[in-house]
């Protein structure tokens, strides 16, 4: 404490002890990053225990990773404190946190040699590890792995856990635990999931975040119990799939995903879990407090279910009439894939590359419907990806208003969602989001094809990465690995797109705004 401040403290009768001063460098980004890394290291630690108790193939890799991640996290957490919480600081905090967590989260795969086969050089191993980590934390579910059986069970459990962390949001986790981050916490939550509704479940932001995590954890436990009750999955399988179902991530410890079980009962249980995870969590909260009609009253929920029903009927129709499936298989494979992709989970129930569950072999019309589901995604306030149903509703309403305004230029025509009018700045923001999304898709496909990808796989992969879907079209379908379909540089681009999509574009594009402004301010001084 300097002499002037010390004198002022004495005059005011305050303590002058150094221990009472706020400790640490004031930097919001590093502080949030430290908390997030600390939490992720807990997941790594638990996975280490699983590894030690099971296959013991990657225990050292996980242990070292835990120490690195935990050490870095605690150092940043304790060594810094919350600084300014302006808008650009919030975006920087969220963007950089996710980026660093993804990079550190790749370390277990790299140290365990998950991709050290077939003469793969170190550079490609690093790229694949980052791809897998990005796919995990962003709940995308695309994979570069091909040798699932050779991986340690603890490492695979860690892989599932990355999606579970990413589903609710690691920043939301930080906000729920630390009241200090309550200041600007709602901005942080909104920045991590900047959808149209950042519903407050409680008056205090940290309580809202905590409620979200309570629902999330309880929901995960229910899915575990349901999967254990169904013949097929073991305890390990149930926990692993519960982590990636509640987060609508889609990872599986098995190369053939849910097709591994070849069980309709398992598929139905998983479908129920995916649907639950793809609905706005505030509706679940209200239902838990006795307001069951909340689902029926919500316009977005009705539109989402309606969309899945219509898409399902169209796809089943194509499979039955065009592809010659039996009616039962058409319903089974059609319904499962529509729900899996409509909720942006990305599970597959195909058994092998020639299976009826492999949608890249389906009629073109069914695949276009699948692509439409890739784009739209699920509900706001859920763990799912895509543009979100509410945005689509508002933008359709905006387009209809544009037409009507041409006929009646002076009419007052608000854009409505359900029975509520949507403010013009929100409509503008959604239109801007949609434009950025379209520009990113065009640029991404151009980039991927320029780096050697096929046009159909590139279109599916770009839209799928931005929407956090998982599988793509063509050579990157549900039974394929992205390491076969795309060269290394393309996988780097896809990793970035996954994070951009998970954070709904703005934070990742604006994360450089704060550091650049800080540099600019210092230069001017």
């Amino acid at each position: 404490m300097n002499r002037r401040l010390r004198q002022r403290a004495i005059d005011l009768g305050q303590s002058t002890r150094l221990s009472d001063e706020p400790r640490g460098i004031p930097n919001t980004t590093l502080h949030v990053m430290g908390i997030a890394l600390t939490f992720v290291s807990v997941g790594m630690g638990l996975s280490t225990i699983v590894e030690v108790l099971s296959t013991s193939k990657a225990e050292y890799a996980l242990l070292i990773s835990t120490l690195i991640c935990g050490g870095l996290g605690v150092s940043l957490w304790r060594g810094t404190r919350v600084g300014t919480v302006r808008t650009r600081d919030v975006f920087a905090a969220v963007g950089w946190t996710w980026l660093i967590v993804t990079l550190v989260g790749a370390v277990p795969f790299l140290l365990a040699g998950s991709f050290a086969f077939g003469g793969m050089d170190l550079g490609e191993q690093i790229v694949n590890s980052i791809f897998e980590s990005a796919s995990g934390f962003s709940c995308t579910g695309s994979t570069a792995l091909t040798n699932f059986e050779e991986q340690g069970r603890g490492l695979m459990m860690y892989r599932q856990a990355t999606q579970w962390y990413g589903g609710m949001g690691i920043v939301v986790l930080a906000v729920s635990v630390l009241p200090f981050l309550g200041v600007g916490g709602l901005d942080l939550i909104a920045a991590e999931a900047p959808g149209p509704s950042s519903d407050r479940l409680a008056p205090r932001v940290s309580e809202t975040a905590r409620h979200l995590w309570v629902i999330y954890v309880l929901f995960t436990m229910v899915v575990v119990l349901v999967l254990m009750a169904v013949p097929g999955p073991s305890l390990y399988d149930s926990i692993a799939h519960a982590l990636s179902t509640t987060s609508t991530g889609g990872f599986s410890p098995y190369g053939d995903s849910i097709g591994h079980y070849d069980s309709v009962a398992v598929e139905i249980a998983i479908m129920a879990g995916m649907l639950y995870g793809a609905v706005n969590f505030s509706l679940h909260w209200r239902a838990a407090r006795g307001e069951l009609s909340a689902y029926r009253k919500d316009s977005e929920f009705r539109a989402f279910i309606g969309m899945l029903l219509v898409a399902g009927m169209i796809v089943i129709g194509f499979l039955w009439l065009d592809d010659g499936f039996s009616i039962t298989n058409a319903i089974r494979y059609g319904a499962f894939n529509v729900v899996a992709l409509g909720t942006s989970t990305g599970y597959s129930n195909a058994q092998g590359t020639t299976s009826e569950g492999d949608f890249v072999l389906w009629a073109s019309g069914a695949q276009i419907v699948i692509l439409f589901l890739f784009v739209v995604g699920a509900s706001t306030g859920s763990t799912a990806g895509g543009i979100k149903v509410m945005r689509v509703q508002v933008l359709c309403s905006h387009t209809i208003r544009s037409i009507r305004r041409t006929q009646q230029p002076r009419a007052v025509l608000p854009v409505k969602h359900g029975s509520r009018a949507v403010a013009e700045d929100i409509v503008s923001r959604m239109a801007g989001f949609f434009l950025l999304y379209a520009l990113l898709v065009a640029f991404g496909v151009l980039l991927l094809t320029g780096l050697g990808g096929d046009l159909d796989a590139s279109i599916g992969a770009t839209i799928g990465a931005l929407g956090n879907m998982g599988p793509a079209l063509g050579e990157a379908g549900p039974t394929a690995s992205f390491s076969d379909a795309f060269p290394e540089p393309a996988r780097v681009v896809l990793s970035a797109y996954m994070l951009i999509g998970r954070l709904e574009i703005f934070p990742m594009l604006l994360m450089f705004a704060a550091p650049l402004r800080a540099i600019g301010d210092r230069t001017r001084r």
Partner: protein
Amino acid sequence: MTKRPKSETALPRLSQERARPSSYARLAVTDGIVALGVIAAFSGLAGAFDDSGDALFLGGFGVVATTFGVAAHRRLDRRLRPAPGRVLSGLALSWLILVVIGMGIYLATGTTDRVDNALVESAAGFSTTSVTTLDPSTLPVPMQLFRAGTQWLGGLIGIIVGVVALPLVFRGSMLTGAAIGSGERLNPNATIAQQRVSKIYLVFTLLMFGGYVASGLGALDSIVHAFTTVSTGGFSSHADSFVGFGSGARTVAVVGMTVAGSSYFVIWWALRGRIAPLWRSTELRVYVGLLAAGSVLVALSADGVGLGEAAFMATSALSTTGYAIGDWTLLDDSVLMLLLILIGTGSMSGSAGGGLRVARAWTLVGFARRELRRQLDPHSVAVIKQGGAAIGEPVLERTTGYQIAHLGLSGLAAFLLAAADVDVVGAIYTGISVLSTHGPGVGTDAFGNLEPLSPLARLFLTPFMLAGRLTILPLLLAVSFAFRVEKGAIRRARRIITRAIRR
């Protein structure tokens, strides 16, 4: 205040004649029929030495159609300010009737014996989309000229929509040429605008004809390609488009396509020697920039393709003409994607081309940047400018609505084509290409041949060609107007029936 007797306030009647019926729709249709009659008569006359059967038919049809159209036109009264919905529904109706008549001509002359092929060929012609169900090299001369003439007429309709009708509907708040300068405008009113546009179009056609002749093409090839270059239509007298032509003809085509894809407002200022407004035009700069960048990127990405060939492909794509100098669908996927972006962006607004239009695309980029900036500072006041003039919020609202409708229709087109057994990439590519009035691509072939597509897929393309030619928001406006008129008619009919029953 005492009311004056009605006789003192009423305007004196100028004539004792009955007032002539007025209808913009009927005017648009009769104008269209007259124009089609002229095209048919010209085709019949010019092709008389080749196939006397077709020439006689076309010539006779031309005379009848022109006579009928002129006679019908004289009975109608022209309102200076029709309602927006009437203007656009009138143009849509005119286009539909022309397509049906064109289909009838193809069937009557035996050019094709399939109704679906005739319909698609006629729609492709009037929408200036370079897709075809015929082998043009086997057609007799009169039919080649008629076919090219339908695109010439379709291009003129497109320019009239962009330069005359839409500014009339949106009362000068459109992006078309409003921001590029003061002085005498191209479109002070609808009549003068239509006359000026028609003159420029005709002179441009003659210049292109002269250019192609000078480059060594024969008379027939020169006429056909002059018609389809100025209209950005893309039909050719050869099944393989420009493959067999030399560099001279290709150079003329590149120049022609570049000008055809430019705004008629820009052409007007250039003709009047006003450089400053041209320099200020953001849209023109972006258009030229896209042409240059597209050419360079295609040359760099495609193996064995020189800069000249790349420039041809990029210009054909951006102007949405659809000419080809080889099977470009066999090129690398990155080149296909690049060309798709150019096709989707399209030409300048107020031109004969299609697509989203450069002005709209650039405005949308500015809008996206503004929203990004607003994330950091929600209270910031950020103005989007083009050509030095600020773009108002109503225009931004309409532009974003247009873009969403455009993407939605592209998706619908892709779904319908996929349902008709076109593969996924082909469906997406062809859907975007047809909606932009370009035509060829993955799914058809590089020369727009629709043979790979099933009859159902070809029929599905027809409404999207209309949507692309009329541009989407006006089409939706026309449809909603027609729907309201129909609803009103149903309501009136129901009222009449209810009254009759009560009596």
